[in-house]
Structure formats: structure tokens, C-alpha cells
């Protein structure tokens, strides 16, 4: 090892950061080289001088207290900050929601669904009152179905259910939900069943939902792109039986 190498390794040797092989090489060189040996002892002198207590500045005690206080303050500020900031966002939202919820009953009124149910029931009652049950009184589905041609922009499914105890007695045009609809009239003993049919703008099918209004049962569903509303004073389980049979005639798409 030459002096230049020894000088660059000297500090690693002093700091015991060299591998054992390098340590031996340095020791070997220092034995035979007075200037490098001198450099080494100078470094030792300086280092021992630096190792005295006066070179190490200890933190003042009040600094320790001050830091502890400010860190604790930061910790405190951090903790509520997270939910305070959340609150800042949430509060106006919650307040708005509360106001809206309180005002909804005053402004919203009945939903469109409720309105349509009322309309369907009213139409059913009217058909019984004014003796205008059928425009085409016929028990023959092959008479009733073609009758709608030219009167509607769709062709409603018409099936006679006489064998099942619900004979078809006719059909007529009606007006519901701001459009002309097909009304098919069935009978079960003395009870009249109105089936309103019109095309649905929804493609998905919905299963029946049942409502009772003014003593009438209303069952509705969507199938094969058609809305079906069935209304009658028939008992609920009887009407459900009718619906099951009607649906059995209409193939699902």
C-alpha cells in the first residue's frame, strides 16, 4: 500500500470501518511510513479533543419542555382536525338534507305512481257507472284483438280465460297516463275486471305489485314491453289467481 492509498484509508482505519484485510495493510504501512504514522497520530489527537464533553451541546431543559408542549399541541390539533374538517363538509349537507326532508311533504304531493293508481281506479269506476264497459262486446279474443287495430299504435295481447272461470266480455279504448290504452274487460261471477294495457318505455320486467285503493284491488306489472294494470273489486286472492292465468297466456320475452 502506498501513501496515497493509506491517506484515503486512514480515516476508515481510525473509525474501525475497514475490513480486517485492509486493517492489516494499513497497519503494515504505518509501521514503515513516518509521515502517514504522523497523520494518524494527529487524527487521534484531534478526535480525542473532540470527544470531550464541551463539544457536545446538550439541549436546554426548557427547550425539552417547549418541544414536548408544542408536539402535544400538534397531536391535539391533528386529532380533532380530522373530524372537524369532516364536520365542516358534513354540516351544510346535513342541514340541507334536513330542510329538504321537512319540505318534501308540502311540495312533493303524491308520486306519479300514486296518481296513476288513482287514475286506473277512477277509470274502472267510470267504466261501470256510465255503462261503457266495452266498445266491442265480444267473448271472442279474435274479435276483440283486431278491433284495436287502427285505434292504437300497439296490439295488446287478448286471451279468453272462460275455461279458467274468467270469461272475456269485451274491449274498449281508454285514456290513461296521458295516452290511449287498451282496456280488456273480464268477468268473474258478478265482478268486473278491467285490464289496462299499454306499451312500456322500460325494457326490464317487473313482477306484480299489489295495492288496495277505495275498496278495489290493483295489481300491475310490466312484461313483454307492456304495462299491465288489473283492477277489480274481486277479492285479492281471486284477482291474484286471475293475474296468474293472464300471465300464463302471455309469453315472457
Amino acid at each position: 500500500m502506498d501513501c496515497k492509498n493509506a491517506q484515503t484509508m486512514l480515516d476508515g482505519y481510525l473509525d474501525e470501518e475497514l475490513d480486517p484485510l485492509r486493517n492489516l495493510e494499513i497497519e503494515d504501512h504505518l509501521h514503515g511510513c513516518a509521515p502517514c504514522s504522523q497523520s494518524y497520530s494527529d487524527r487521534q489527537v484531534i478526535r480525542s479533543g473532540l470527544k470531550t464533553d464541551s463539544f457536545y451541546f446538550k439541549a436546554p431543559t426548557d427547550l425539552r419542555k417547549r418541544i414536548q408542549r408544542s408536539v402535544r399541541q400538534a397531536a391535539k390539533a391533528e386529532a380533532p382536525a380530522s373530524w372537524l374538517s369532516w364536520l365542516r363538509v358534513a354540516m351544510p349537507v346535513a342541514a340541507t338534507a334536513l330542510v329538504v326532508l321537512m319540505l318534501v311533504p308540502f311540495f312533493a304531493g303524491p308520486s306519479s305512481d300514486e296518481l296513476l293508481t288513482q287514475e286506473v281506479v277512477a277509470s274502472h269506476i267510470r267504466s261501470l257507472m256510465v255503462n261503457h264497459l266495452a266498445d266491442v262486446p265480444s267473448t271472442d279474443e279474435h274479435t276483440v284483438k283486431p278491433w284495436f287495430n287502427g285505434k292504437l299504435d300497439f296490439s295488446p295481447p287478448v286471451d279468453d280465460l272462460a275455461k279458467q272461470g274468467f270469461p272475456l266480455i269485451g274491449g274498449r279504448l281508454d285514456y290513461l297516463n296521458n295516452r290511449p290504452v287498451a282496456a280488456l274487460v273480464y268477468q268473474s261471477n258478478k265482478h268486473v275486471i278491467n285490464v289496462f294495457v299499454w306499451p312500456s318505455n322500460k325494457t326490464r320486467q317487473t313482477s306484480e305489485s299489489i295495492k288496495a285503493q277505495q275498496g278495489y284491488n290493483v295489481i300491475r306489472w310490466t312484461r313483454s314491453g307492456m304495462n299491465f294494470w288489473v283492477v277489480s273489486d274481486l277479492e285479492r286472492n281471486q284477482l291474484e289467481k286471475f293475474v296468474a292465468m293472464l300471465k300464463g297466456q302471455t309469453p315472457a320475452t
Partner: protein
Amino acid sequence: MEDQSKLARFEQSILPHLDAAYNLARWLTRNEHDAEDMAQESYLRAFKFFDGFRGTDARAWLLAIVRNTCYSWLQQNRRRETMASFDEEVHSIENEASNPAKLVLKSDDREMLKEALEELPVEFREVVVLRDLEELSYKQVAEIANIPLGTVMSRLARARERLKRLLCARLKEKPKDGL
């Protein structure tokens, strides 16, 4: 709950290294007042980033923050002394004239050594403080000062060589007897 335990963990693992933090800040800023500010700022930063501390060497982690805080401060407050003027090549060991005379340091000469250390460029000063005062390994020094391991040794060599030269110059000027 979460923050309570964070504070507790912080106070347990980081707060005990306040002396190390203050000592480094004191040597880098070269005055007590700024050192206290740097230490406090460093501790607040350390607390802020404490969630990111996953290691076991809390002292080295804290000292890296202290070092960065002090360097930012130096850049803002002591433009003339910044690292921009520091060049590894210019300060290479060949340029440091080695004094052939044997160095002897009496106990009342230590104040001169202190002055000499304060006079060193900050890049030299920090490796000496971290290695000789804080007694950290080269690996720890490399991580704190953000330099390669090999640079730690070469920088220490140059720093000590220059320290010796500065000290020798002072010792020569020293009046022989009293006032």
C-alpha cells in the same frame, strides 16, 4: 385513540434523542438561539411524518430531519455559506497542505479546536459532528447526510485534514505566555 398512541410512541422513541438533535442543529447553525428553533421545527416535522417512520433507528431518522431543516434554514439565511460554494474536487485532499509538525493539544487549546470546527464548511462540519461527536457509523452518516458510503470516508479525511490545518494555524498564533 389512534393519535393518543401516536403521541405516546413519538414521545417514547423520538423525544429521548433531543440532545442529539440539538447538538447537530447547534453545530450546523453555530448559535444557540437558531439551534433551538431548528430543533423545535424538526420535532414538529418529525411528528408530522412519524406515521411514515417504519425503521428502528429513531436517532438517525430524526437527525436526517434536523439536517434537512437546518440546510433549508442555511439556504435562506446564510446565502454566502451555502453548499453552492462547496465543491468536492476543489476541497480534495491534495489541496490540503499537511503539517509535518507533531500536533499536540493541551486542554486549554480545546476552544481553538471548537473554533476550527465551526470554521469548517458545513458539509465537512456535519460529517465530523455525526461521526466524532454523535459516534454514528459510516452507514448512518451516509443516510443522514444523503451521500454515498465511500463519500463519508473521503469527506471525513478532508474534514479532519482541514481541521488539523486550521488548528495548527491557531496554535502558531497563540501567545506563549498569558496576555
